């Protein structure tokens, strides 16, 4: 997903303009633009932000009980047509004529049967805060921003797991943080952690809030005061080092702001997880995030050069920025994936790259999923994967089709018909088996075109047909609207979720088939009336395997406890993944949702190692979110 989904191609002229502007400025004031070391974000912002950063009162612009911005949502209008509101996305304001039929057909749902959410947060249902008064006093004295408003606390009490959102929609509030604090720089965090240790308060770091592993859930058994440490105000790029192509950034910055601000200087990190509109740099580090374009830029562990984290024992960081070291086990790997159990990541030095000259989407139709996987495997073998290459199965291809906006001209619709005819009739692809790979190429124009040809040539050997840029782009669009779509489904008795894994190449097909079938079977056995949507795509390729992403959703009419059913099925699906040689998680993390399998996943000794680190770093369990271990 490109930030805001707005630009797909940057002309070289534009780029030169950006760069020359940037150079010009640089000549005048050197590092001054971004080098301020003092501690107040607003004051030091050299270039007053064009786009507003994340506000403290997030619920002013974001949904309190659903995904994303309040102004952007799917709905079925009076004519029964689906539309997407707001102005933020390419799809905003458009009608999606085929979504209704797909929705009703796939889930057996009916627009007459609504299951609306509680319209507003019932403040009286929020338990009163359990405050540690002396902690609060000292915090106030130190000048740290804080709040005990119910809206602020509820907003930070959850991630985006189905059960979390479902409970909010029903107006059910369980344990929520007792206090929210907003440090504005590293030193604020040091103070907060010191005070938390002193007063034995439980800290839960909160970045973008996009967790899907129950990582943000407050442990119900926690008796201490729980403080949510919201990093959103630590959002500055502190410096850019063009000689080494690194940027030093405060960890609270969210993906879209980071990319936008770097773009202004002609750079990017290239790290684009699907959640990048909302997720934060610190969150990426804490969960070992993966970006869509990792083939060029790498995953978070490849991008990070230096990390600063505040723990109850003090600050942990390396003494230099050497690109690789042999100094015992890499301490970064204790931090990455620690899921907020050891401390707060405050500042990160990341690799940056010049903004690519040229970007091009593409897509390939395969006669079936097997051929598609074989092609991706070959691409990985030849190490010529584009910035992104993803393979959707047939169900997801049909899903993607249902999201086609109304066609404006007869010509386009005629062209679509012609394409369909060519693929299904002339080439003999079965519309119920064919599947689509979406591609994104990046780099300088000539190389992109060359690269493109190489990939299409490989695809041809596996029966793949080039299917145009539009299809490719729409495929990537699906990624960011899917979360909004879940809210629409929940308005009509449909619940769902996605989960992921990574698996060696030779097991990809078996794993996909078995997990999808397991989901269908478990739903049936648990009394789900209509067959579920059970679909997958291969989203990343590696030398030795791939990342597979599953979507699973069903119509829950007639079930007394749909969330329980959902959780049982997801549990069974995860068991199936593990039985088929898949990993516990590729990038979502473990949180509390997948904790039970950690021992199996890393062995008893492995788990013991992690526990002993926790024991040393945080003996009083100040970072008490109880994730992972």
């Amino acid at each position, binding site marked *: 997903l490109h930030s805001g989904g707005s630009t797909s191609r940057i002309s070289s002229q534009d780029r030169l303009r950006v760069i020359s502007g940037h150079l010009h400025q640089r000549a005048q004031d050197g590092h001054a633009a971004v080098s301020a070391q003092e501690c107040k974000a607003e004051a030091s912002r050299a270039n007053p932000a064009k786009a507003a950063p994340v506000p403290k009162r997030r619920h002013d612009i974001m949904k309190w009980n659903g995904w994303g911005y309040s102004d952007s949502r799917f709905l079925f209008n009076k004519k029964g047509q689906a539309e997407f509101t707001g102005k933020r996305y390419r799809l905003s304001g458009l009608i999606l004529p085929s979504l209704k039929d797909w929705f009703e057909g796939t889930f057996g749902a009916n627009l007459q049967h609504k299951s609306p959410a509680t319209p507003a947060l019932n403040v009286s249902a929020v338990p009163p805060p359990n405050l540690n008064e002396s902690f609060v006093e000292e915090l106030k004295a130190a000048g740290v921003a804080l709040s005990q408003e119910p809206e602020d606390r509820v907003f930070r009490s959850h991630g985006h797991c189905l059960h979390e959102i479902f409970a909010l929609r029903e107006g059910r509030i369980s344990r929520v943080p007792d206090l929210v604090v907003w440090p504005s720089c590293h030193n604020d965090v040091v103070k907060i952690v010191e005070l938390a240790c002193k007063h034995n308060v439980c800290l839960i770091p909160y970045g973008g809030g996009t967790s899907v592993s129950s990582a943000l859930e407050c442990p119900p058994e926690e008796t201490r005061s729980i403080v949510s440490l919201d990093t959103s105000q630590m959002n500055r790029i502190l410096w850019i080092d063009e000689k080494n192509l690194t940027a030093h950034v405060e960890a609270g910055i969210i993906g879209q702001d980071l990319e936008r601000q770097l773009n202004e200087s002609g750079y990017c990190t290239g790290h684009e997880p699907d959640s990048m509109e909302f997720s934060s740099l610190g969150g990426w580090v804490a969960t070992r995030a993966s970006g869509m374009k990792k083939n060029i830029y790498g995953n978070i562990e490849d991008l990070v050069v230096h990390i600063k984290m505040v723990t109850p024992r003090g600050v942990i960081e390396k003494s230099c920025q050497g690109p690789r070291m042999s100094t015992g086990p890499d301490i970064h790997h204790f931090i990455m994936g620690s899921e907020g159990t050891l401390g707060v990541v405050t500042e990160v030095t990341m690799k940056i790259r010049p903004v690519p000259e040229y970007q091009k989407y593409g897509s390939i139709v395969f006669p079936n999923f097997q051929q598609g996987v074989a092609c991706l495997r070959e691409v990985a073998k030849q190490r010529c994967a584009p910035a992104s290459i993803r393979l959707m199965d047939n169900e997801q291809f049909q899903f993607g089709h249902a999201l086609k906006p109304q066609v404006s001209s007869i010509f386009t619709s005629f062209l679509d018909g012609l394409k369909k005819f060519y693929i299904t009739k002339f080439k003999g692809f079965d519309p119920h088996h064919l599947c689509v790979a979406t591609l994104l190429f990046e780099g300088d124009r000539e190389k992109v075109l060359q690269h493109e040809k190489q990939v299409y040539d490989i695809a041809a050997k596996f029966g793949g047909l080039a299917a145009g840029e539009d299809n490719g782009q729409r495929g990537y669009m699906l990624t960011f609207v899917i979360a909004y779509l879940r809210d629409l489904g929940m308005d009509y008795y449909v619940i769902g979720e996605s989960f992921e894994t990574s698996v060696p190449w*030779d*097991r990809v097909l*078996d*794993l996909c*088939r*078995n997990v999808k*079938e*397991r989901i269908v079977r478990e739903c049936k056995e648990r009394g789900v009336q209509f067959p579920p949507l059970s679909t997958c795509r291969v989203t990343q390729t590696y030398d030795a395997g791939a990342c597979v992403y599953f979507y699973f959703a069903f119509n829950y009419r007639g079930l007394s406890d749909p969330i329980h059913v959902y959780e049982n099925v997801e549990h069974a699906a995860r068991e199936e993944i*593990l*039985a*088929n*040689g898949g990993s516990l998680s590729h990038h979502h993390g473990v949180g509390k949702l997948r904790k039970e399998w950690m021992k*199996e996943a890393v062995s008893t000794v492995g788990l013991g190692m992690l526990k002993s680190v926790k024991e040393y770093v945080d003996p009083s369990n100040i970072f008490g979110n109880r994730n992972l271990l």
Partner: protein
Amino acid sequence: MASKSLYSGRDPVLKKRDDFEDVLEERRNSSDLRYALRCYTPALYKGLVPCKASMLKSIVLQSDSLQYVVGQVSAECGESREAVQEEAALLLEEMAHRLQLGTIRFFAFTLSKAFKALFRGVCVNEEGIQRLQQAIQEHPVVLLPSHRSYMDFLMMSYILYTYDLALPVIAAGMDFISMKFVGEMLRMSGAFFIRRSFGGDKLYWAVFSEYVKTMLRNGYAPIEFFLEGTRSRTGKSLTPKTGLLNIVMEPFFKGEVFDVNLVPVSISYERILEESLYARELLGVPKPKESTSGLLKARRILSEDYGSMHVYFGHPVSIRSLAQGHISRSQHNLLPRHIPQKPTADTQAFVNDTAFRLVRLQEENMVLKPWVLLATLLLQNPDGMDLSTLTEQADWLRRLALAFGAFLDWPDHEPCSKVISSSLALHKNLVCVSGGRVRLVVEELPGAESATEEAGFNRAVSVLSCASYRNQILHLFVRPALIAVAMQTANCSRKDEVFNCFNFLRNVFSNEFILCPGAAVQDFEEACYLLGKCGAVQELQQDLVMSQSGQTTLAFLCSVLDPFLQGYQVVCRYLCEELEENLLENKFVPAVRSFTLQLILSGSLKCYEALSSDLQKNALAALIRLKAVRRVKAGDQVTLKVNKIAVNSLEDTLGKTNPCLRRL
């Protein structure tokens, strides 16, 4: 556990069984030719990877797993890769089937004629067929018929063709291949041939297992094989072999298929074609080598009446549900799946357990004819019975069998005496009625005395033929009978004492009968329940006591086991008394046989069943298992080392169960 259906319920009587339909009925009323040429369009597996038989071979030969073993073998024996690959191709050529619809049509025509001549009816449970049709579409299917006759697999394919179901590929023993023309015909009707023993031959195993697994994974066809490994000559189920079952389960364990359905099929014959052939074989007359001319000579059997046969397709058993909680599939995560791996102890135990349970399912759905009851009674009365007594006791036994959950095909609307007389008539080669007395037919020797070896042998043929029918019902009685004997032996009614005796006997006989390993407690409870239900015993808190009316039932049950107790004792006695220093294993059976025959001729043993080589081999296997006898390999020869003290004490213990033999 999701596999409840696989376990015998607490009350087998309540087991609901399907109705039958006679497939020959339509054959008798319409053209066989049209039937053989009709449109055949079976429903196929949803995940089918379409491929021809020849294509199949190249998939197997190119597979990673075979390539791996070829590399291994070539490194070990120093031959070139190509040579080993060539060898593998030859093995596959020898093995592979060439299933052709044309041949099936030919068989459909000729077998229609033959079956109509042989059988009054071929009854199939249609609901089972419907379940199978469903199962075939959902997951790869493995058909597991019982094996009592050569007829079995022809009949299976015939029925599947009749019902428009996917035709199976069948694992058959190599012995057929020597029947020139017939072997090839069978190959073209879907049989693939496996050598009887290929012990350590890595390459053979690799070719064979990959061939089966490829067909399974691709959903090529249902795979059919006999769990028992060979035809049972005794009418009892044989201890299952787990080799092939292991192979068909592996694709599931390794995640290559979502599930595999195992379908037990029970094929029962009112009269077995090979009846007296089997008895002679058990007495040491070697079985005739399969040959085409032999088959043609067997034509005369076409003129005889073999009654009806029943084929019951059981509920498909999902390996996935069975394995749930028993097998961790993730154990295969750390090794490339094409590298052959010995199954772990857990896996082996699971496969073994499953094999036993499947055989029990076969047994449970085996249809029993009234003759089976008559044979049981006649064997307990070797001097013959009055027809009236037989009728009376048969009626009693019928009720007992039904109480135990027998799948008895007894015509309800007919009077008991009529049922019996028609049964006797069908088996007139085994029994005769003269002067109101029913006795076994024994081939008379002109003018000879009754005490010669040959006379004894002739009588044994009759007894063993008859026993092969009684044996069909043993699975029903064996557990209660073990309790009956245990109660008699324990000489005390304490339940734990009885259980100990029961457990001992069960252990001794676990090569003889299908007794699931490790299920002693379950078996005991099941048997207690049945005995309580039929009013023979009362189960109290601590005790198990015979009820007043239980005497007849318990005595009957004891005599059911009697031939086996006596037979095992004879084997023990032989090993104690007669054994020379080094008995070669392959001399064991003839030696025991002549020892036994001498006991019979001297009049000290009445039990002709002790002559059965099957029983003798089972007894030896049990003694080896109980470590009373040791096998010592020296070169090609295996000798038996007997621990006389152990064997003697075993004989003693068995003797306590059977006072009559003590008297000898």
